[in-house]
């Protein structure tokens, strides 16, 4: 018996040295589980309240609906039959079970950076996830986008396969952060501006993008538009607890914090913060002239703010740590794209609840009470009061946001 086990081990090591681990070892499965958390697989592959990883969550992409497949170990409807090579091809190349092309809603352009060993650790973990029989029709795109072969051309334009290459000039911590941000955590999937075809504009990586009716803000170290004003610890607190002295995570980021970042190790969170604080700071950039306080919209906005906002956000725009976001000095408040601002004023939003900050306070919606011009005025005001400076928000922009929210709340 001993001999045959040894022989088997030898055989494995001869056939594929990289995969010479025991796929059922606790350490490996546990590492795979953690990598699945880092990669936030559950965000798409688990429906709220549904069985873990049994799929079925419909993703609203700019091109149509894609439904995240079942990735439990069920052999018929899940990935129980997938080989290691097939699993690697999914994450690294965007090639599915039978070689069919995946759509990049599955963030393989990011996961391609993950090491073979990490991907296969995840594979080991998913093999242990309870099988659930749930057949999912993933591709619900309209013609001609539903032709998967089109992705060959998309990949040619937008996708470069390849593992993460450490930067030897940077620390191990920085490189770990880069590996997570660019790879597992696929931050750019939301935060990097997209081409018309939905590919990443990598020359402006992480400088903010609009999706699902939210503006995913600039998370480079740009002092005006990005997180340059945040200390590394501010960023750590945000990822760990979903809140810091500036703001509270809500919308899609609330889900990312809830499913993923609040479960990361302190070391990994610090690594992410280290990397982001060292990325993309293009310099101060030109700060626009603030809209004058005498401007009509500013005056109306100041009055609306006093009536409707100051009770929580305070007259000074300081807000309250872990409860009401700070508006004075906030990069998000001053971002060029006011999508998120208009959205939260119109529809409200709820902050994430985490073990470290369970409160989950919420902003009420004002759509029933404030007209488009009023929302535009109060936003123009908060973007240009207390030392803030940003282009005014137009009533038309608010109107189109209101209409978009009406169609897809």
């Amino acid at each position: 018996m001993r001999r045959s086990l040894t022989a088997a081990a030898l055989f494995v090591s001869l056939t594929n040295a990289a995969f010479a681990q025991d796929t059922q070892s606790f350490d490996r499965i546990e590492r795979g589980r953690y990598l699945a958390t880092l990669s936030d697989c559950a965000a798409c592959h688990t429906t709220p309240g549904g069985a873990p990883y049994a799929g079925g969550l419909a993703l609203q992409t700019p091109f149509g609906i894609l439904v995240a497949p079942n990735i439990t170990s069920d052999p018929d409807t899940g990935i129980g039959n997938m080989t290691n090579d097939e699993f690697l091809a999914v994450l690294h190349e965007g090639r599915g079970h039978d070689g069919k092309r995946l759509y990049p809603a599955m963030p393989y352009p990011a996961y391609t950076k993950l090491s073979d060993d990490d991907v296969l650790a995840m594979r080991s973990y998913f093999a242990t996830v309870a099988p659930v029989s749930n057949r999912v029709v993933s591709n619900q795109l309209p013609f001609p986008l539903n032709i998967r072969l089109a992705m060959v051309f998309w990949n040619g334009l937008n996708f470069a396969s390849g593992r993460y290459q450490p930067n030897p000039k940077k620390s191990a911590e920085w490189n770990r952060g880069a590996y997570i941000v660019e790879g597992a955590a696929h931050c750019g999937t939301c935060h990097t501006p997209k081409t018309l075809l939905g590919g990443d504009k990598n020359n402006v990586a992480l400088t903010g993008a609009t999706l699902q009716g939210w503006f995913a803000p600039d998370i480079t170290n740009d002092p005006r538009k990005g997180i340059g004003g945040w200390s590394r610890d501010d960023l750590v607190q945000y990822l760990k607890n979903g809140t810091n002295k500036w703001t509270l995570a809500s919308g899609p980021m609330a889900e990312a914090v809830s499913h993923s970042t609040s479960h990361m190790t302190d070391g990994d969170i610090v690594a992410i913060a280290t990397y982001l604080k060292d990325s993309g700071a293009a310099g101060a950039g030109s700060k626009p002239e603030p809209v004058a306080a005498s401007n009509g919209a500013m005056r109306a906005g100041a009055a609306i703010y006093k009536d409707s906002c100051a009770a929580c956000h305070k007259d000074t725009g300081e807000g309250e740590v872990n409860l009401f976001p700070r508006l004075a000095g906030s990069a998000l408040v001053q971002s060029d794209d006011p999508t998120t601002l208009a959205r939260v004023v119109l529809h409200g939003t709820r902050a994430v609840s985490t073990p470290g900050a369970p409160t989950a306070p919420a902003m009420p919606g004002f759509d029933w009470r404030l007209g488009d011009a009023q929302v535009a005025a109060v936003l123009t005001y908060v973007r240009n009061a207390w030392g803030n400076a940003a282009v005014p928000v137009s009533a038309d922009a608010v109107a189109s946001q209101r209409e978009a929210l009406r169609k897809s709340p």
Partner: protein
Amino acid sequence: MARKLPAKDVVIIGLGWTGSILAYELAKSGLNVVAIERGPWRDTATDFPPAYAQDELRYAVRLDLFLRPDQQTMTFRNNASQTAMPIRSFSGFLPGNGVGGAGVHWNGQTWRFLPTDFNIRSHLEERYGKDALPADMTIQDWPVSYDELEPYYDRFEKLCGTSGKAGNLRGQKQPGGNPFEGWRSSEYPTPPLKQGLGATLFAEAARKTGHSPFPQPASNLSEAYVNPLGVKLGQCTYCGFCERFGCGNYAKSSPQTCVLPALMRFPNFSARTESEVTKINLDSTGRRATGVTYVDTSGEEWEQPADIVLMCAFSFFNVQLMLLSGIGKPYDPQTGQGVVGRNYAYQTTSSVSLILKDKILNPFIATGSHGMIIDDYNGDNFDHTGLGFFGGGYMGFGQTGARPIQTRPVPKGTPKWGAEWKKATAETYQRGLSLATHASSYSYKDCYLDLDPTYKDRFGRPLLRMTFDFHDNELKMSAFLTERLAEIAKAMDPVEMTASPRKGPYDSTIYQTTHNTGGTVMGADPSTSVLNRYCQSWDVHNIFVPGGASVFPQNHGYNPTDTVGALAYWTADAIRNRYLKNPGPLV
């Protein structure tokens, strides 16, 4: 036929202050807990956001957050010779409804009872003689002392983040606080609220007349605060919309702002709202509860089995449910035998209204517990020899708000409507204020709760019947307290003053307070109490009434919520540390 649900460790009836505290403490211990709540789920941003929370017509006049009589009501009479009639519009007191219960719509006044309140009968008999108390007065010592309860008061105040100034820290008197209060193990979690001009003028007059004013303890927070559950509360904006309103600013302590965010994270806790418990079920011996039966909005009946049943409804409904479920012996006022429904008590309030000269009081800058208070005439803080009554209360200027519909002070003789009335309200609004006394209501043989013989609720169950009137002891006390208050008021140099001591008979159509106490009282003797000192039923050991005001043997001169919260923690500790190890009678 009720459909039977999978068993839980604990079923909680009512998700207000006591329900949410017990749910948190027991879920933290790993028990499977379900709370069944008669009213709707309520959440700050969804149900009372600052965008419309300050709607006086909706909340204060039309009573949006309160129980609707067609869902559940009760009957009332002043004495046994009358026929009780159903309350068809709650007005004298306002039972809450929905998640958070009265903790949503309260003012935030957070008072401890006096140490001597806990042994009131033995204290008064010792000081004034065995025969001093009226024969029909049924007050009794609490089965728990102030010293035992102090750590639990402290816990509840830290949960709330209560704002105030201690007057007695571990026996050391503290300047600026209440010199009469029992010892505190720690200072209030947050400093006192800022006071307005009216309160400042009252405090000056009180000092001038030899009294000791101090800021009212307030669970409307003077500054932002993180409680021991990790939940963050905001700073009060002094908007003046507390009582009858939910707080849209996360600044008034409530189950929503203090407990639910942490409680809802427990996977072993769940809540079923808009589901009314109709009965607690007992096993064939009648000595053990097997769970509860409840009805959902579709009229569907469900049975929820559980090992422990916690009665956390508002006081009246704890009493009604006990009577309907056959738990404990119903009280019989003829013989004085029986306990369930015994010792119903209330609160004795009165007022002195003033109009000052040349003042701009800005009375709208207010919170539910704003104000300066004196405690010189509470409990037995003053000598009752020869006064002809016992008990007392606090008094002072508590500025809860000056909302435009219901706050219209006018000089005497002003018409009730028309141009003159309008002119008078405009002239008086900034100068008018009302001082108040808030005093004890002792229990009597003929004040009680039982099941009405005639009127039924929507399920065909008998309504609860209240038989209550003020007694001479309380009316004399109110006259005395109101005179003292008027003396201080005179020192404020008013141009007009009206003193209104409480007069009988009790009128259930005039709002006084919602401090309805007793009916399932705790005590040391099973012949005069429903619950033992751990708020556990003497008869059915797995039923607890963890601290709701129905457990008070009589009502003292303070608002009940701090004592309710302290008893909730006291009971939670008894269940966790004693009952779970050895389920059975704890006494």
